[in-house]
């Protein structure tokens, strides 16, 4: 079953001088539940734009988008927030932890906007899972970049989403830490999470079972691995 179904997606950006940049020009993409997809392409090829659309952060585009067979094109901002909170876990390239807030509360952040029980226990077990048990009460500014990405992964898992989206999650990491973080992500995919990773590194993409190559807002080539 397709969890993500994008048809003829077009996205134009207009800057203040009314100059139009076409970031996506008629793109079709289907992602099945449980898949691990790597999106590759040069800088400026439209990867992040695509990611924002997939992640329900951006609904201002042309074309059709069904998420879990539901048309999400015309949902209100608040409905999108709700869906995002429930279905999608984000891991960004940088920043994206609350400063002056400890690991536990960063992981708990998504739960602030919904009332679910047993939050702390789940957060603690996720922190343990990403190997940061001893850092649970450390402030985020006391962590290394690798540790920050682990916290972000734990946070992304907090609401038990069906899709994990990661925009260049290893972009700021050295090779060794990058491998550790990727191992973590691959583990999640093995547990059944749909995983979409943006990267421009071949080594990272090699882990995926499908690679989507973008060029100038279109899919240049697409290949299944293994």
């Amino acid at each position, binding site marked *: 079953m397709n969890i993500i179904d994008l048809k003829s997606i077009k996205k134009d950006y207009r800057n203040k001088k009314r100059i139009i940049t076409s970031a996506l020009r008629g793109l079709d993409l289907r992602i099945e539940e449980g898949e691990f997809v790597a999106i590759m392409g040069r800088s400026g090829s439209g990867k992040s734009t695509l990611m924002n659309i997939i992640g329900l952060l951006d609904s201002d585009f042309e074309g059709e988008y069904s998420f879990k067979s539901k048309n999400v094109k015309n949902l209100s901002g608040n409905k999108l927030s709700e869906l995002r909170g429930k279905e999608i876990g984000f891991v960004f390239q940088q920043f994206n932890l609350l400063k002056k807030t400890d690991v536990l509360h960063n992981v*708990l952040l998504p*739960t602030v*906007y919904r009332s679910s029980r047993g939050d702390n226990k789940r957060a603690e077990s996720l922190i343990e899972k990403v190997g940061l048990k001893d850092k649970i009460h450390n402030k985020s500014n006391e962590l290394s970049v690798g540790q920050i990405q682990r916290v972000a992964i734990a946070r992304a898992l907090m609401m038990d989403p069906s899709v994990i989206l990661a925009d260049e999650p290893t972009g700021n990491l050295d090779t060794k830490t990058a491998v550790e973080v990727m191992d973590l992500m691959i583990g999640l995919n093995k547990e059944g999470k749909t995983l979409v990773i943006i990267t421009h590194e071949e080594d990272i993409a090699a882990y995926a079972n499908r690679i989507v190559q973008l060029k100038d807002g279109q899919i240049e080539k697409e290949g299944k691995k293994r």
Partner: protein
Amino acid sequence: MKISALIGQAFTAIFANKVRSFLTVLGIVIGIGSVIALISLGDSVSNTIGENFSSLGSAMITVNSKPVKEDTDAIDEETDQNEDPGIMMMGRDHGEENGMRAMFMGVVSDPTLTEQDFNDIRNLGEDKVTAVSPEISKTSDVAYNDLSKSLTVTGVDIAYFQIEGYEIAEGVLFSNEDIAGKSKVVVLASQSYNDLFGSENAIDEVITIDEEECRVIGVLSEKKESQFINPNEAILLPYSSALESFDQEMFTTISVEAANEEIVSSVCSEIETLLLANHEIADTGDADFTIISSQDILDMQESTMAILTGVFAAIAGISLVVGGIGIMNIMLVSVTERTKEIGLRKAVGAKTYHILIQFLTESVILTLVGGLVGIGIGYLISLIAARMISITTVLSIDAVVLAVSISGAVGIVFGLYPAWKAARLDPVDALRYE
């Protein structure tokens, strides 16, 4: 949404910028401080005024002598006999103000009121006036044994005790016979008694007032002090005896107790008509007396209070608005600084109102903290000010509730725009913000 998480986040954000938060909140502190000082002081001042005048009675009318300004010859003639340096004559140049001053300070001008005036007012009848007493005072050398003091001695009618609410502690008050017979008898107020006798027996003892022997027949119980006059310092003798001893024919003051509050102003005008006729004065403007009711004074006090209240309220209002703008400014800065955070929150599921409430909570907590500090400072100011004008002040629950509500409201009003700006940020733009 979880309230505890919300408040926790707000405090984290506020404490992340302690100095900035403190400076931001100063305007609110000053504004709320003024509100509290205003209410606490205002309440206690009007309480004090109220007490003073309830001790006086709300249906009191005071007729005071007033020297005529223009006709100096006439005054000179009249005052020749009055120009006794012992008679208090402060404030004789103050004309219009005299009534007020006399009422407040016990300042007396040249006596112009006659025994005829007194009798005529009394003859208005019980249904209009319930008590009438003339007053004539003189600073005299009062001596008992080898103790001698310069004290104010006042001649009054029996009705004076009723008007002033004096009660007899020992002995008796003087009688109509004493007045008719110009008896040299005195009644002492509690402190004057203490000054002269300590705690010894005074009844039937003889004191001298300017070398004239007088017999003490009564001592009054202690009365609660009012702000302007100490009622426990008084040496009272029949007005007839006083006129004779002081070599006077006129009274400085006639105190009148009207039958009830409703008729005070009509009694005032009746007295005016009476006295103008008695003094053969055609024009009210030339009157050699002033008539003032306790109601008039209360009104004056109240309008003074209203002006003070207005000034304080303006200070409070201005500093609250300025403080509010400061809050708005700092919240806008905060929203800009935390754009990425807002994007992140939206990415993990925050809806528009979640962000709105988050920033509103921050601004309201800021103003509430400012409000609480302001309450403390305002109360301190009112305590100090109250001590300076020797009244007591209390921090009323109402004032605290009002101050808390106002500071909360300022937080909401001035926090709304920044919070709304934060809430409507587009998540993609917010996440991209550098």
